[in-house]
């Protein structure tokens, strides 16, 4: 019996070159999978929602003059004439919520015609698109000149658009600035990956199986696929310039502790909460500006997982965030601004067990984040890698509507190909992070005696062993942590069943975990 090589242990992942067609890619990514019936977890818009996007007609947009007022571009002025709910995306495009204009103007086509007529009035070259989602409207405005109306399925409407549309879409958001700029730039690189796979249109990206895409590209790939399907990643956040939910207070004496600050927050948030309730709105994001005694401003922006307006919850979230990111000096002025979105409508079921509400989860994860660290609580997500312990943390959002990952993960390519042992599904590993160095007496490579210089650790004579199972990876990029090792499952004389591995790079033995 020959020792299994790395090639034996890994599946035949094809190297995809630009010449390969979409069909080959789709074949690799299990074409038998039907398109997902359940929409991926994200912001799910109301089916009656209707959005318009006005985009500067020129291909390149000149950088705004420092002297120019921020909201004097023609497409922004046109949008403001039609709707109070406007969101800008860079200097090139504006999205407006036209859901309520049906009674006033009529069909989406009529609304589009009126928008185009208004653009003529400003003598501006504006591309106009109307669709059932913000994303679809923006993509259509990028892809088609003139007026485009897509009153039906957003995914079908944008399916024929070229893949470069996505790049322009992301560039608009990057131009808009913000903390997520670096993330957006990283996402943009993924568009090139799609091109290398031979994909040319958004429809082809939308048709890729989500699970396999997530395994290969992580959350970035899923985010791009949602864009390609015309699914909104976030609700429309109205731009400043429309009615604002803002409260501020100048303090008589500077505050340098959280407890007195909580009373100030309560005083500011309660009227804001009442105003949101009157307007049937919820907070999508909270912006806190603290002017400090050293003349600097400490700004925190909280993106909330769901629209909420409970003053106590908002106050708790602000306090927990400040506990993790305290200001550098005492506070002189406190200002809180809320980005409003339409109120959340929840339909509970008598037949399903209630899950924690978004408000509860937001507070809980904020508290846990303050206690153990933001990166150490959430849901684990498996990565498409053979690297041991290949997983990352993501926000915990349990959802009844999500398809169960259990079947696909236990029966899918990842689980089948990872290791033959995993198919048994009977034993779970208790992993040591990092692995523990052990002293192993080996006979022709087979472990015979295991000793660990730590109290309470397993050790003893190896009574039964299975292996070696060789894995290696990242040898092409040592900076990312190359590994090359032989794994063994061993039963020790003290009754423990452990997973050992011999690190072939450093030539030493480690205890990876205990099978329990």
């Amino acid at each position, binding site marked *: *019996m020959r020792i*299994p090589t790395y090639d034996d242990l890994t599946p035949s992942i094809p190297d995809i070159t630009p010449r390969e067609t979409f069909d080959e890619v789709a074949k690799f990514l299990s074409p038998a999978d039907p398109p997902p019936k359940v929409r991926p977890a994200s912001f799910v818009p109301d089916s009656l929602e209707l959005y318009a996007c006005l985009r500067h007609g020129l291909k390149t947009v000149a950088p705004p003059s420092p002297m120019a007022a921020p909201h004097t571009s023609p497409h922004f002025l046109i949008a403001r004439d039609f709707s109070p709910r406007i969101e800008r995306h860079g200097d090139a495009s504006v999205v407006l919520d036209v859901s309520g204009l049906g009674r006033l103007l009529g069909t989406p086509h009529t609304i589009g015609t009126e928008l185009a007529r208004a653009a003529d009035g400003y003598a501006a070259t504006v591309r106009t698109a109307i669709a059932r989602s913000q994303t679809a409207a923006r993509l259509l405005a990028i892809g088609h000149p003139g007026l485009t109306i897509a009153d039906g399925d957003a995914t079908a409407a944008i399916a024929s658009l070229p893949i470069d549309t996505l790049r322009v879409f992301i560039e608009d958001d990057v131009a808009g600035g913000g903390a997520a700029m670096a993330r957006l730039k990283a996402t943009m690189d993924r568009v090139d990956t799609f091109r290398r796979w031979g994909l040319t249109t958004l429809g082809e990206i939308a048709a890729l199986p989500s699970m396999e895409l997530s395994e290969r590209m992580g959350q970035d790939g899923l985010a791009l696929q949602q864009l390609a399907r015309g699914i909104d990643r976030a609700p429309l956040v109205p731009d400043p310039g429309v009615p604002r939910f803002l409260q501020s207070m100048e303090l008589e004496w500077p505050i340098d502790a959280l407890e007195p600050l909580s009373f100030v927050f309560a005083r500011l948030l309660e009227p804001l909460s009442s105003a949101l309730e009157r307007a049937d709105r919820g907070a999508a994001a909270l912006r806190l500006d603290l002017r400090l005694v050293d003349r600097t401003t400490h700004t925190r922006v909280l993106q909330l997982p769901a629209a909420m307006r409970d003053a106590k919850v908002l106050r708790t979230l602000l306090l927990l965030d400040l506990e993790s990111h305290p200001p550098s000096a005492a506070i002189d002025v406190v200002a809180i601004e809320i980005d409003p979105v339409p109120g959340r409508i929840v339909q509970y079921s008598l037949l*399903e*067990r*209630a*899950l*924690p509400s978004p408000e*509860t*989860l937001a*507070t*809980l994860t904020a508290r*846990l984040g303050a*206690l*153990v660290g933001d990166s*150490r*609580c*959430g*849901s*684990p*997500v*498996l990565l498409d890698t053979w690297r041991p*312990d290949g*997983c990352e943390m993501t926000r*915990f959002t*349990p*959802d*009844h509507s*999500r398809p*169960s*990952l*259990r079947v696909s*993960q*236990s029966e899918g390519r990842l*689980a089948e190909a990872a290791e*033959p*042992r995993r*198919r*048994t*599904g*009977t*034993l*779970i*590993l*208790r*992993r*040591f*992070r990092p692995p523990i160095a052990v002293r192993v007496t080996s006979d022709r490579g087979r472990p015979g005696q295991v000793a660990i210089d730590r109290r309470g650790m*397993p050790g003893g004579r190896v*009574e*039964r062993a*299975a*292996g070696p199972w060789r894995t290696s990876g990242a040898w092409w990029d040592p900076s990312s942590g190359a590994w090359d090792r032989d794994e063994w499952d061993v039963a020790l004389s003290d*009754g*423990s*069943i*452990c997973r050992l591995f011999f690190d072939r790079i450093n030539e030493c033995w480690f205890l990876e*975990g*205990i*099978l*329990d």
Partner: protein
Amino acid sequence: MPSALRGELESLLRDRKLDRTLTTNAWADVVRDVAPTGLEILDEQLGGGIARGHLSEIVGPRSSGRTTVLCRMFQAAADRGEAIALIDSCDRFDPVSASAGGVDLTKLLWVRERGDGCRALKAMNLVLQAGGFGLVAFDIADVSPMMLRQFPYTTWMRIARVIEGSQTAAVVIAAERTARSPGGVTIALEPALDAPRAQWSGAADRARFLRGIELRTRVVGGR
């Protein structure tokens, strides 16, 4: 006279909602809401599953199958559509093998602590107080006994009080018996001394696979 005193004492306990500590109590007739473990043999022993609103424990030595039983409970809870949480005191949970074992990771809130049992206990308390979870597990199997002794004596009583009457089933994973509430159970996983626990297939090392381990459970407590 003793019966009168006993009646008075029971009345006082009921007033303070401590009547569940009584051995002769009418609440025993109340239908128990249980969370099935997903292991048929264990469910038979438990009378359907572990009790909701109570603190139970899974105890056993290394490689006795504690984590495997826990993951089966996670799988069963996720299949019922419940949210599950794991407070991992020593960061031992392995999502890769758990997922291969059938756990739906999207339903799992995983709180990773680096060995600080007290902080993990606070996290456990926060999760239980938030409510809405079907199953919450507190893994202290690798926490040192010295650290466990630092927990105040009332810790477990307080946790039992937090979940009392809720739909949450709480489970402690430990090496030794640590705590359970009056309605909870201890699932003791015992080593099989008369036979090798591990089940292997294949003769030579290179052709051998670890197929599983033999679980020997003993249920203590529960009413």
